[in-house]
């Protein structure tokens, strides 16, 4: 061989190219058309982006300006559900083709979740309640018995037990122990509960971001709730997250408060907005594969990323976007 170093470099490059992607796939539900008006000209591609390498978002599926949430079947990552303006859409081939699996009476889905212990059971949060499918999205039925004024923004299945579901609604948080057949109100609010999340460290711990009642925490699996008062009630909170690498680190995104971080399990909170163009933050994502990395959806702005848990930020993707959700799905 005349130039063996070329072979060596090639092997290095191949090895680098073959480096395994992060263990989680990141899905981003994004609208790049700002502000989007139904019926308007759509130039940029909206909808579902897949970011395997955390560098290059790849658009999959339709150019759908309003996809609010995504969930993936834990048995088969090719089976993807999205909730959006047109209802619940399902792909069984990793996003290549899609079917709207709900009808005219279940649309504008806000959140969607698959029961990890019963993956054929899929729950969707709707503006007029909750629906569930028991056959992997083939058929759907209403499941909001007992919930008065059932606008539902957030729905989450307790990962420790099949059929245990929490719903963030217009008037509080409801808990079901029987797969949404019956519900019990476990937290009362005056306005919408925007986000409910379960701790990756302790499954008994849940956090809830609300429009008017600040940040709420449950330490008993969602049965009772207490306010983490350090965040306050002055601002609408849109979502909340846990740092998978540090059980004492919590994060909140909200309107005019931006990104708030707690390093002491919610006792105190610090704004981490330096470098962000404004403090109107729709969504924040905590990357489970890169300790300290956050993604923030800032109003009318690009998506920003931080590798030091919000102390510094840099532009990451898009030129102006609204991200409705960052969803990390285990690759296997």
């Amino acid at each position, binding site marked *: 061989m005349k130039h063996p170093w070329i072979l060596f470099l090639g092997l290095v490059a191949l090895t680098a190219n073959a480096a395994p992607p992060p263990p989680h796939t990141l899905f981003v539900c994004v609208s790049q058309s700002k*502000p989007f008006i139904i019926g*308007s000209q759509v130039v940029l591609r909206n909808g579902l982006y897949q970011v395997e390498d955390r560098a290059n978002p790849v658009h999959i599926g339709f150019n759908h300006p309003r996809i609010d949430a995504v969930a993936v079947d834990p048995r088969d990552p090719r089976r993807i559900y999205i909730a959006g*303006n*047109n209802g619940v859409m399902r792909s069984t081939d990793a996003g290549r083709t899609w079917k*709207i699996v709900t009808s005219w009476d279940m649309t504008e889905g806000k959140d969607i979740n698959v029961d990890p212990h019963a993956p054929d059971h899929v729950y969707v949060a709707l*503006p*007029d309640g909750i629906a569930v499918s028991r056959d992997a999205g083939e058929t759907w039925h209403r499941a909001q018995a007992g919930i008065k004024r059932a606008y539902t923004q957030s729905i989450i299945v307790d990962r420790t037990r099949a059929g245990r579901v929490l719903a963030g609604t217009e008037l509080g948080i409801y808990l079901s122990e029987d797969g949404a057949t019956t519900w019990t109100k476990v937290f009362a609010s005056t306005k919408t509960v925007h986000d409910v999340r379960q701790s990756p460290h302790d499954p008994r711990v849940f956090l809830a971001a609300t429009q008017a009642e600040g940040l709420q925490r449950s330490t008993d699996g969602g049965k009772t709730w207490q306010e983490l008062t350090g965040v306050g009630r002055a601002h609408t909170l849109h979502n909340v997250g846990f740092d998978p690498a540090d059980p004492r680190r919590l994060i909140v995104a909200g309107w005019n408060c931006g990104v708030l971080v707690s390093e002491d399990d919610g006792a105190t909170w610090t704004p981490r907005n330096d470098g962000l163009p404004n403090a109107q933050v729709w969504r924040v994502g905590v990357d489970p594969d890169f300790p300290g990395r956050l993604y923030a959806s800032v109003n009318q702005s690009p998506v920003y990323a931080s590798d030091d848990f919000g102390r510094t930020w840099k532009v990451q993707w898009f030129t102006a976007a609204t991200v409705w959700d960052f969803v990390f799905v285990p690759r296997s």
Partner: protein
Amino acid sequence: MKLVTSILLLAAFAAHAFGADTPSDRFVGYRARVREVLDWRAAQVKPDDPKTAGLPGIAAKLARHEDAAWCSAQVVELMKAPSGDMFWMFPCVSIAYLGRDQLTPEAKAAMRRAWREYMPLRGDTENHWAMYYTSLYLMAELWPNEPGETWFSGKSSAENLAEAKAYLISWMDLATTVGQGEYDCTHYLGEYCIPMLYLATWAKDPEMRQRGRMMLDWILADYAIDTLNGAYVGAHARTDDRQVLEKWNGLSSFFGWLFLDNCPAPAGYGGWGIFFAAAASASDYTLPEVIYRLGTDRAGPYLSREHKRTRHRWRNSDVRNAPVYKQTYVTRDYAVGSDQGGMLQPIQQHSWDVTWAVADPRGVHNTMFSMHPHVSIDEMQMYFTEFPDWMPTLVTLQNKPSYDKEDKLLGGSEFEQVCQDHDTIVALYDIRPGTKYEQVNGFFSKDLVRLEEDASGWIFAQGGNAYLAYRPLAPYEWRPIAAGGKRLVSPHRRNGTILQVAAAHEFASWDAFKAAIRALPLTVALEPKPKVTFKTLRGHTMVCAYGETPQIDGKPVDFAKWPLFESPYLHADVGSRKLRMTHGRLEHVVDFNTLTVTDRVTQP
């Protein structure tokens, strides 16, 4: 064709009996106006500049059966980058149907492919859904027996057809039992009429074709009863910043021009009017003679009462579709109309006004009203499923620029209550402390021929042949309006407006009118809540207290018995699904229970 012949014969008999212009003359005129629209739009197209065509140009040319090869080439090009959701879907429908025997296989294939690759949004309002599902229905009929892989929805033709039909029937049920949600809209009227004409013209299923025809009758009758020379008058679920002042200048007036021939056509035929005309060129739909007559006969005053409903309420309400109680008093010279006020629509609500007749409405602001410039995140959340804080800004960016402006003249308010008796309006305001704009805006047109502030507290004005007496209940100041006229600004939370209208010919003189108004018994209290007791020019005593049921002549207004339609011309009970239209000896009954339309001429 048989049906058209029968209708024309019946109408001809009726016209003969009543000595009016004949319906066949009217039909000829209608067809000529349809042609005028298509000729105009087709003439805009420059073959060497495809941008001048677009979907409307292609629809116009296909309707005229011209340049099919050129149209086909444009369709192939335009289908490469679809955009516009249901506003793309329904133009496609007209092109697909008008082009069945004209477009090339390549053009048809391009359109078929677009309906697989482009996913239009279903939208978030009723007019969106009417267009979306009508379009989906008709395209599923056009392309039957196809599998889900060939549709954007992933559903088969049969599944799409069934879903679209189910929605449309559900909406028709709602509209014909408790009323439309987007009722009496100066623009969105067209976005119901066009889909319904499509169904009436192109649906293969006789049931859906009949439903389309019947809904079109229903919607146009609803429009005709509340018009004055083609202008939509009174309360609107939605209008816009321009049409709320220049009452004629909306898509609704396109239908006044087209069917009633009693006003000029709006510029560009209202835009979407092109697609109505394109479908009309292929349709045997004709306006029932009764609707023509009730839309044009202003020989004597009449009162129309209607039951409507709010759009879907998603939050902040126990009721999905709250009732709306609407009334309109129409005379030859003016019309006064209102709903009960309150929070009935998220954007573009117009709760009440008077509209006076003018010889030529173009550029004329022939109206008067007051309103509270309300801005509310709660209101937005009630009707939209969005996150809160950004919504008012978002709305202003979505072609509703005045939503969060102090000087706006468009919009409803949760702090407004309206009571009407014939041509008298009492509007009361009790604005919560801390509300963004604690004031009432009154609109005074540039086109008033008189305007006098009277020592009595009344403001007297004249528009056309209407005498107007406007009584602000709290101190005020004047501010100019950029588009002309001036705004009465009354910066007081407890407030109100009384408006009494009359025709000039009812009084011997202007001074006589003023004297009559000054003599009307009136007591006003603003604390603890606004309350007005007023004896109207028509001799009725109105007692209106904020937060209480209004009383007319000692009797509380019985909203529970408010009819779906009640007037000398339209008759329907809430829940009935049946609308009886009458004029003189003519009767036209649209019955959704039996899906039948019945015409008859009653014996003298």
